[in-house]
C-alpha cells in the first residue's frame, strides 16, 4: 500500500523517527535495529527496545560503519527471538539475503525497513565535514533531485557508493522513498496492508511515480557509468603482467577486509588457523628457490582464496575498501572479479532468497564440455 508520512516540524528526520516509534509502540515490532547517534557526531548501529531511545535514532545518517547484515545475522541467526524491525541500506539488504542463503540469518519475524540510499561517507570524513558544516542533511537528501552527487564540495562519497548502481532497496516490507523528495515534503512510504492497518495508516496517493523513477534512472545510469569505468580500469591493471601482485603489493595481510566483509562469515576461517604458521625454514627455502621472498607471505593466496569463497556473493558494499589501511581498492577488485564469476553462473547476489548459491547447487546437464578431451 502506498501512503505519505506528513512532515512533522518541517523535519524529515523527526518524521521518520515518529514513524519508527509508531512501529515499536503499536507492537508491529518488539525491537528495532537502526543507527543511533553517539556523542561526537557519529552514529552506530544499535538494537532499540525502548521507544524513548528513538529520539537519538538517525536512520538517514550518511555513514555506514559496518555492513549491518552482519549485525542482523547476530540478531537472528537461526531463529529471531522476537519481532524485529531492521532498518537497512540496499547493499545491506543484499548482503542479508546472501547470509540467509548461507544459513547465517533468517528473515522470519523480521520486518525489513529499507530506505533509498544516496550513498555514504567514510566515518571520519563525515564527522569532520559535519562539524565544519560542510555536510547537511538537506543537501544529502536532495542528492538525486537535481541530478548530482551529494556534497561534492567537501568529502566525497565512499568509492563503493560513487559506483553503486543499486541504490533502491528490494524485498522490503516497508520502503521509505527518499529519492526525488524535497526536504519540505511529506515522505512517500510503501508498506504491506497488514502493517498499514496496525499503524492505522490509510492509502494516500503518492506523487507521480514516473517523476521519482526518472530521478532513480538518472542516478543509477550516472553511477553505472562510474562503475564501468572503475571496473574497466581495475581489469586493465589485472591483465597487466604481475597485475594481481601489483594491486596487492601494499597489502599487509591485516585481514581487515575479511573482518568487515558481510559475506565472510566462517567461524573457522582457514586464515585464522595455524595452517600458515610455517616453520622458519619454510621462508629460507622459498627465498633460496626464488632469490627473495615477501614477508609475511601467502598474501595472494589469502586474496585469491577469499575471491574464491565470496566473490559470487559479493554485493559491492565496499566495506573492504573503507577498512583497508593500505588504500588498496579491494572492493573494486572484488566487484570486477565477482561480476565475471556472477555472470558465469547467471547469478545476482541479493536478488532473491530463492536463487540458490552457485556453488551449492548443480545441474547434471551443464558445462558438459568440461572434463572431456579437447
Amino acid at each position: 500500500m502506498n501512503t505519505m508520512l506528513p512532515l512533522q516540524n518541517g523535519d524529515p528526520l523527526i518524521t521518520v523517527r515518529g514513524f519508527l516509534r509508531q512501529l515499536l509502540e503499536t507492537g508491529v515490532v518488539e525491537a528495532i535495529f537502526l543507527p543511533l547517534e553517539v556523542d561526537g557526531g557519529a552514529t552506530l548501529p544499535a538494537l532499540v527496545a525502548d521507544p524513548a531511545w528513538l529520539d537519538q535514532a538517525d536512520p538517514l545518517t550518511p555513514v555506514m560503519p559496518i555492513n549491518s547484515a552482519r549485525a542482523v545475522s547476530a540478531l537472528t541467526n537461526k531463529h529471531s527471538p522476537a519481532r524485529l524491525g531492521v532498518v537497512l541500506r540496499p547493499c545491506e539488504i543484499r548482503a542479508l539475503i546472501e547470509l540467509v542463503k548461507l544459513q547465517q540469518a533468517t528473515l522470519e519475524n523480521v520486518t525489513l525497513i529499507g530506505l533509498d540510499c544516496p550513498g555514504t561517507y567514510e566515518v571520519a570524513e563525515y564527522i569532520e565535514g559535519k562539524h565544519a558544516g560542510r555536510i547537511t542533511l538537506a543537501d544529502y537528501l536532495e542528492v538525486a533531485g537535481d541530478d548530482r552527487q551529494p556534497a561534492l564540495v567537501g568529502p566525497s562519497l565512499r568509492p563503493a557508493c560513487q559506483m553503486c548502481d543499486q541504490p533502491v532497496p528490494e524485498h522490503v516490507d516497508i520502503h521509505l522513498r527518499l529519492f526525488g523528495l524535497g526536504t519540505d515534503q511529506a515522505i512517500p512510504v510503501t508498506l504491506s496492508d497488514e502493517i498499514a492497518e496496525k499503524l492505522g495508516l490509510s492509502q494516500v496517493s503518492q506523487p507521480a511515480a514516473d517523476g521519482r523513477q526518472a530521478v532513480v534512472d538518472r542516478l543509477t545510469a550516472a553511477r553505472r557509468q562510474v562503475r564501468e569505468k572503475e571496473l574497466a580500469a581495475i581489469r586493465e591493471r589485472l591483465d597487466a603482467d604481475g597485475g594481481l601482485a601489483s594491486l596487492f603489493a601494499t597489502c599487509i595481510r591485516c585481514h581487515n577486509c575479511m573482518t568487515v566483509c558481510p559475506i565472510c562469515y566462517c567461524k573457522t576461517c582457514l586464515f585464522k588457523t595455524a595452517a600458515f604458521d610455517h616453520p622458519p625454514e619454510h621462508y629460507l627455502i622459498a627465498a633460496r628457490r626464488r632469490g627473495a621472498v615477501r614477508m609475511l607471505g601467502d598474501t595472494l593466496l589469502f586474496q585469491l582464496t577469499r575471491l574464491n569463497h565470496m566473490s559470487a556473493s559479493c554485493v559491492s558494499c565496499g566495506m573492504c575498501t573503507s577498512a583497508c589501511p593500505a588504500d588498496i581498492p579491494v572492493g573494486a577488485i572484488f566487484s570486477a572479479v565477482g561480476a565475471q564469476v556472477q555472470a558465469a553462473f547467471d547469478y545476482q547476489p541479493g536478488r532473491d532468497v530463492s536463487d540458490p548459491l552457485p556453488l551449492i547447487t548443480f545441474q547434471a546437464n551443464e558445462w558438459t564440455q568440461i572434463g572431456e578431451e579437447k
Partner: protein
Amino acid sequence: MNNDNHFEPHILAFLCNWCTYTGADLAGTSRLQYPPNVRVIRTMCSGAVDPVYVLKPLLDGADGVFIGGCHPGDCHYQTGNYKTRRRYVALTEILKAVGFDEQRVWLRWISASEGQKFAETMTEMVVAIKELGPNPMRTSWTV
C-alpha cells in the same frame, strides 16, 4: 631445470580414489608409459579438492594442476563431481579475471577402466604445459 632449452614442468595431480586414481593404477599395472612430470595426490573424491589446494601450488610455482574425477553420473558419492565442475568454473573464471593462465588447471573425467586414457591425458598435459612454459609465479617473490 627451468631454462628455455630444457623445461620439465612440475604438475600436481589430484586423483579421485574411485575412478582416476584407479585408472592411473591400471596405467601402471599395464606398464603404459607417460612422462614422469606428474606428482599424484589421491583424494577420496574430486569434490574433496578444495580450490585452495589448486591455488597454493600455482602460487608456489607448480606449472600445472590436474584434477581427475569420475565421469558425470558415475560419482561414488552420487554428486561430488558435479560440484567439482561448478567449482572449476568459478576457479577458472577467477584465474582468468586476475590474469592467471587458467590453462594450467585441467579437469578431466577418467574412469577406473581408462588406464590408457590416463596415460594419454598426462602426456597431452605435459606437452601443453611445455608449450605454455614455466609458471611465472615460480620466480615471483611478491606472492
